[in-house]
């Protein structure tokens, strides 16, 4: 009896835009997943050769080592300004600013708001893990009330440190942004939604519509002092109630 030929089809593979270099992120950290999603989007949009990535100061400072596109460093908090400079020189390129919560909402608040307000045709990917990861777990602008960190050892007290800042809602008060969505990478379903949001944001930029902002709630098991699985559950139990997921703007 003749053996039937079997056609093998790749069901899943490493995106061409993602380097094979093993990443430096801790087990359970969301950055690796987010890098992969970005790489998939870049592949699917066919923009690997026309994208410039601006990496922040923070754990993802080396993002440009993992995404195989032109890459640029930015001083802490300045990614939107650097991205503005690049985009104004190359309006035809896709410019992505990848930032963490300390970078985007503390030291870089002015750059964040004004790049959004100018409607710079860039895409800001905001990874919110409620802590400063790289420097060892200090309180971030998005650290939750009562959350313990190295610099809020008794728990964040709103009387002392204010409340966590909601970036999407803040930017949603501005006229210029065309796409604002908050998503998460703690479950498979949320990962898939995040990819859709990234695709939408990048498409908005490709189509010349304007500024797009995707906030991604992400895990920092090391900074939070949790097991990876516990951390993923904490996103749902503690972060999502304060930072609700969803599309705030899609013009």
């Amino acid at each position, binding site marked *: 009896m003749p053996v039937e030929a079997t056609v093998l089809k790749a069901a899943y593979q490493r995106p061409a835009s993602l380097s094979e270099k093993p990443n430096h992120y801790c087990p359970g950290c969301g950055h690796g997943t987010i890098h992969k999603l970005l790489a998939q989007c870049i592949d699917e949009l066919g923009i*690997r*050769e*026309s*994208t*410039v990535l*601006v990496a922040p100061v923070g754990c993802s*400072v*080396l993002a*440009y080592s993992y995404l*195989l*596109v*032109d*890459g*640029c*460093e*930015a*001083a802490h908090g*300045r990614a939107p*300004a*650097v*991205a*503005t*400079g*690049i*985009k*104004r*020189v*190359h309006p035809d*390129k896709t410019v992505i600013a990848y930032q963490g919560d300390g970078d985007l909402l503390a030291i870089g608040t*002015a*750059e964040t*708001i*004004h790049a959004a307000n*100018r409607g710079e045709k860039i895409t800001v990917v905001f990874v919110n893990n409620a802590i400063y990861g790289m420097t060892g777990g200090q309180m971030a602008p998005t650290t939750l009330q009562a959350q313990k960190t190295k610099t809020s050892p008794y728990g964040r007290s709103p009387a002392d440190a204010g409340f966590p800042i909601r970036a999407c809602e803040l930017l949603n008060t501005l006229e210029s942004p065309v796409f604002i969505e908050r998503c998460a990478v703690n479950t498979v379903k949320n990962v898939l939604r995040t990819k859709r949001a990234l695709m939408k944001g990048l498409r908005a930029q490709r189509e010349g519509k304007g500024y797009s902002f995707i906030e991604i709630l992400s895990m920092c098991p090391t900074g939070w002092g949790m097991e990876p699985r516990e951390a993923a559950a904490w996103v749902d139990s503690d972060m999502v109630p304060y930072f609700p997921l969803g599309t705030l703007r899609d013009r």
Partner: protein
Amino acid sequence: MASTTLMKGNEAIGEAAIIAGCRHYFGYPITPQNELPAYMALRMPKVGGTFLQAESEIAAINMVFGAAAAGARAMTSSSSPGMSLKMEGISYLSGAELPAVVVNMMRGGPGLGNIAGAQGDYFQAVKGGGHGDYHCIVLAPWSVQELADMTVRAFDLADQYRIVVIILGDGFVGQMSEPIVLPEPSGKVFDKSGWALTGAKGRDPHLIASMRLSPENALEMLNATLQAKYRQIEECERIREEYETSDAEYLLVGFGLSARICRSAVSVMRKSGVRAGLFRPVSLWPFPSKELVRAAEGKRKVLVVEMNAGQMVEDVRLAVGASVPLEFYGTLGGITPEVDGIVERMVAHAR
């Protein structure tokens, strides 16, 4: 023959930058340099360029970082308090070896100080200002014509060495109006295709970064490269001007506006029979030490005149050592030195 135009110093920089091919200007309002961003806001749209009023000096210098990384000729301008804010960005530009032109129309400090011209930022510009071991090329103009010519040269130097060039003027030079002949473009072409961020089309990705974590000696290597570049600049790019120095017994040393006042002092002293001359560093970094040593040799006295408490005088001292008597005459808080005061200091001694 080229026709002359009456221009304000700050505006002359703007037009010269456009002549030099700069199409990306990012700035933030601060007196006494406001005519420059206003000029750029008018002119850039007419030449297909970008004028962007940033949310701060910090944002402006980082926009320059982005535009320079993207391969464009980019510039920003400010005055003393704003320059302090730009220092972070200048350190990053230096570490990433990006070319940029930064104008500082100095005013009185420290702090908010006042809005009169001053020269108190010599140390900041020449000795660092930001963190880490780096240098900017620092050029000190004394006239509107020179501001224009220097701007064209600054863009070439920035591109040639992938370095930040600071044009260190002061509020007076920036605000004065003089007839000038607009400069011609230099015609020099610099190939940035090997490093600029243009999208990795048909090539490996480019990376613009100052961070060096691995291998272990990567940062040491970067610094060695920077230092080698700085030694080459020190060797090749020293600029100075001398006035009546060949037979001088008394030597004035000043930069920018102080030098211009010193030139008048030289004329006054010559008329009264005192053989005085002027040595004027035009590049403050690299400092024209070798030329100064020659000019100062055998002088009865060297008098350094600055609109500060004594900054460049340290570099003069480093150059000439104890070989000649050296004195300092400075004015503070946005006050300009007067010819009489300079002459008195010199002539009192001469008698």
